[in-house]
């Protein structure tokens, strides 16, 4: 298992190298000049030219790439062109915000999705099954920004139950320690704030979790149906075991592997793909960090931000693969 883990970690190197290469050259293919973007339309051509030189943008592009790669190898993620501060120092609060949101979204998605999938398979062709699968179909095809705006309108504006934006009460901000606010409020022993943070997580969590939830539900259902038709399940039922146990113990265990794969992939996607949710709910996460940088042509932030997201993506999937063995003893690494 250790061997496998190391091998997988080793495979990160070509992945990240490839990513860095693609990202580096693609973002430079977008029209637009960082120096001009920073200085604005009123700056003189001379000022723009001198900033370009300062930023090293006049070097041949290959040289620029090797500079960047060299910095990366020494663990230096670079300096933001927009804020001129170190990216490695800036990136954590954004990452923490996204991780917290993605965690809650996946919590909702897994809990609801898996159970809905199981029940649909159990009571196949029942009203519940049809309803759940239609809802799941709608969930998959629902545009996140529309769902988010509707949630805000209904739960914040009409019912006044939940706050519409942000991670915390704007007028009573959380004292950041780890930047994971659920944790920080508990460390500070401020339960009121903890519940406020939880409240702020619900609407964006649901908006972000809806698509994975629907995918997980459909995947669980089809995987369960397959397993429940197999011989050993028939045997278990024949010997008179209770249906609940047959479904949740015997069937789910075997049906869960593909579901786990989907959960892993979706978690990875949420980390990088939460831009829409983060924008609508004004969530200062990593998706928006990278997105804003694209607008400013802040090359170092785009490059390093995407690399960090890619690394996490690979890690999440590694963890999922290791979890296979925990679920299914037949799988050994």
């Amino acid at each position, binding site marked *: 298992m250790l061997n496998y883990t190391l091998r997988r970690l080793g495979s990160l190197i070509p992945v990240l190298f490839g990513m860095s290469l693609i990202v580096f050259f693609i973002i430079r293919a977008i*029209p*637009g000049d960082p120096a*001009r*973007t*920073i*200085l*604005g*339309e*009123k*700056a*003189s*051509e*001379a*000022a723009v030219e*001198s*900033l370009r030189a300062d930023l090293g943008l006049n070097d041949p592009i290959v040289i620029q790439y090797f500079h960047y790669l060299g910095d990366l190898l020494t663990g230096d993620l670079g300096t933001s062109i927009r*804020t*001129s*501060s170190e990216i490695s120092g800036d990136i954590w*609060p*954004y990452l923490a915000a996204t991780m917290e949101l993605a965690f*809650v979204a996946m*919590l*909702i998605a*897994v*809990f609801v999705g898996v*159970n809905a999938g199981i029940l649909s398979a159990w009571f196949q062709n029942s009203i519940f099954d049809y309803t759940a699968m239609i809802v799941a179909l709608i969930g998959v095809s629902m545009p996140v920004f529309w769902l*988010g*705006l509707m949630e805000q309108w209904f739960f*914040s*504006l009409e019912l*006044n139950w*939940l*706050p*519409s*934006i*942000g991670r915390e*009460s*704007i*007028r*009573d*901000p959380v004292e950041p320690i780890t930047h994971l606010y659920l944790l920080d409020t508990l460390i500070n022993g401020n339960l*009121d704030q903890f*519940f*406020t943070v*939880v*409240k702020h997580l*619900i609407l964006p969590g649901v908006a972000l979790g809806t698509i994975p939830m629907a995918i997980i539900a459909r995947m669980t259902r089809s995987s369960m149906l397959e397993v429940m038709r197999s011989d050993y399940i028939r045997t278990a039922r024949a010997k008179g075991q209770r249906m609940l146990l047959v479904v*949740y113990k015997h069937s*789910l*265990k075997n049906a869960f592997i593909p579901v786990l794969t989907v959960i892993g992939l979706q978690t990875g996607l949420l980390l990088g793909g939460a831009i829409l949710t983060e*924008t*609508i*709910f*004004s969530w*200062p996460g990593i998706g*928006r*960090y990278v997105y*804003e940088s694209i607008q400013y042509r802040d090359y170092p932030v785009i490059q390093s931000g995407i690399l960090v997201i890619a690394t996490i993506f690979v890690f999440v999937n590694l963890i999922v693969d290791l979890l296979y063995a*925990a679920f299914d003893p037949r799988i050994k690494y």
Partner: protein
Amino acid sequence: MKQKKWLSWLLVPAACVVIAGCSSEEGSSEGEDETADSDTQDTLVFGRGADSTSLDPAKETDGETFYVTQQIYDTLIQYKPGTTELEPALAEEWDSNDDGTEFTLQLREDVTFQDGTEFNAKAVVANFERWMSSEDYVYYGSMFGGYGDEEDNIIENVEATGDFEVTFSLRQPSAPFLKNLAMSPFAIASPEAFDTLEEEPVGTGPFTLSDWRRDDSITLDKNEEYWDEGKPHLNTIIFQVIPDNSSRLTALQNGEIDLMDGVNPSDQSKIENDENLQTFMRPPLNVAYMPMNNETEPFDDPVVRKAVNHAIDKEALINGFYEGNAETAKNMLPPTVDGYNDEVQEYEFDPDQAKELLEEGGYEEGELTIDLWTMDNPRPYMPAPQKIAESIQSDLSDIGIDAEIQTLDWSTYLEKAQAGEMPSFLIGWIGDNGDADNFLYTLLSTGSGNNYAFYSNEEADELMAEAQAETDEGKRAELYKEVQEIIHEDAPTVPLVHYESIMAGSDTLDGYIPAPTGSERFTDVSFTE
């Protein structure tokens, strides 16, 4: 045994969701109480679309930066709220010699910087020396012409001629000089803090920085030592980033924020119908226009330029793309600026007259084909560049001019504009200092880098130079009025519109007056309940 493992997978999230669900019920009532304090509210939350770049105004050019730095720093002279007229700030009074080449400012003697450093003439000189020192200080170069000892830098010398007296000697007369001093980038910072201003701003202003979370919020606290006694009224201002315009409005309606910019014009009536909200209009200090290259065919012929001026239906543009929040432009100068000539007769929208003009000029229908360039992304003054271009294209085709629309990304667009490679295109100008010079001289004097129309009229040039040296405001205004007559007659551009942006806020908000220059002080803002 083993089933416990996977059961916990389901149970833990279940428990969490239940806890979350319960707490949300409990917590929501608290949430509402936050704003409904029995005392008068003294925290203002301002929702806006993006974060400040840094908090050193001298280095930045973006409005989001100035929104915040305007509260932390003071300028020597400031704009009266809602106008571009000047009033004293850190300088109590000022004087100039007759030809406008020497300005003397008397400074307030009771001011200290927020870090305890004394504010005096030396501090002012140090600030100017800093801005002149490098091209990092973009606005300095753009407003004062150049840096250091360069001939183009209109400030030849800044000198502390007393403890609280500063004298500026200029290389050439510049009446707009005083207006420049009121601009947000030329705010006076503590010389002790020059190296760290970007993250830790130190000025003399009504508020101090308390907390900055990038792309999230900036919190300012009241400066208890502020020199203007009894002010500010607010204790705290929070600048909250909410990127999406609709979400920002929901947050305002929900009481999570108190004031916002970037209102979708289509939401305006919704806000006006909400009794808890009010709208504010920012007076326009801008012009959207269509330069025509006066040096190349066919626009070297004034007849064609006039015909195009008659052909474009500006009202249709305003109703179609500005949702009514703009006024038609007949001058390149917006009406908020001193010297605006209201006597100028607008080229009316009249395709028939345009056609006649072309016929008289000897052009046959369909003979003229032009390229009409537009930018790829919206700008504040050009909310739908592609569609506006299409509308103009169809107006032009009605008078027999065949226009082909070309699109380019912004930075290449500017380069091409400066090089004169686009015969006609869409662009705009947002005023910097509220002076007529900043529009007319900058956009239409011979040789100016922003004279995209490559317009050149000796008489206009002379009048504008004369106005730069004229220190009597009334006489200056007359000169600019004359310049506008000349420009109108030559029609080097099509002035399209002056757009107004909408702000919205809670109806308990008092004393908030949007500034035409884009960033207002919150010194006089308070809440009525």
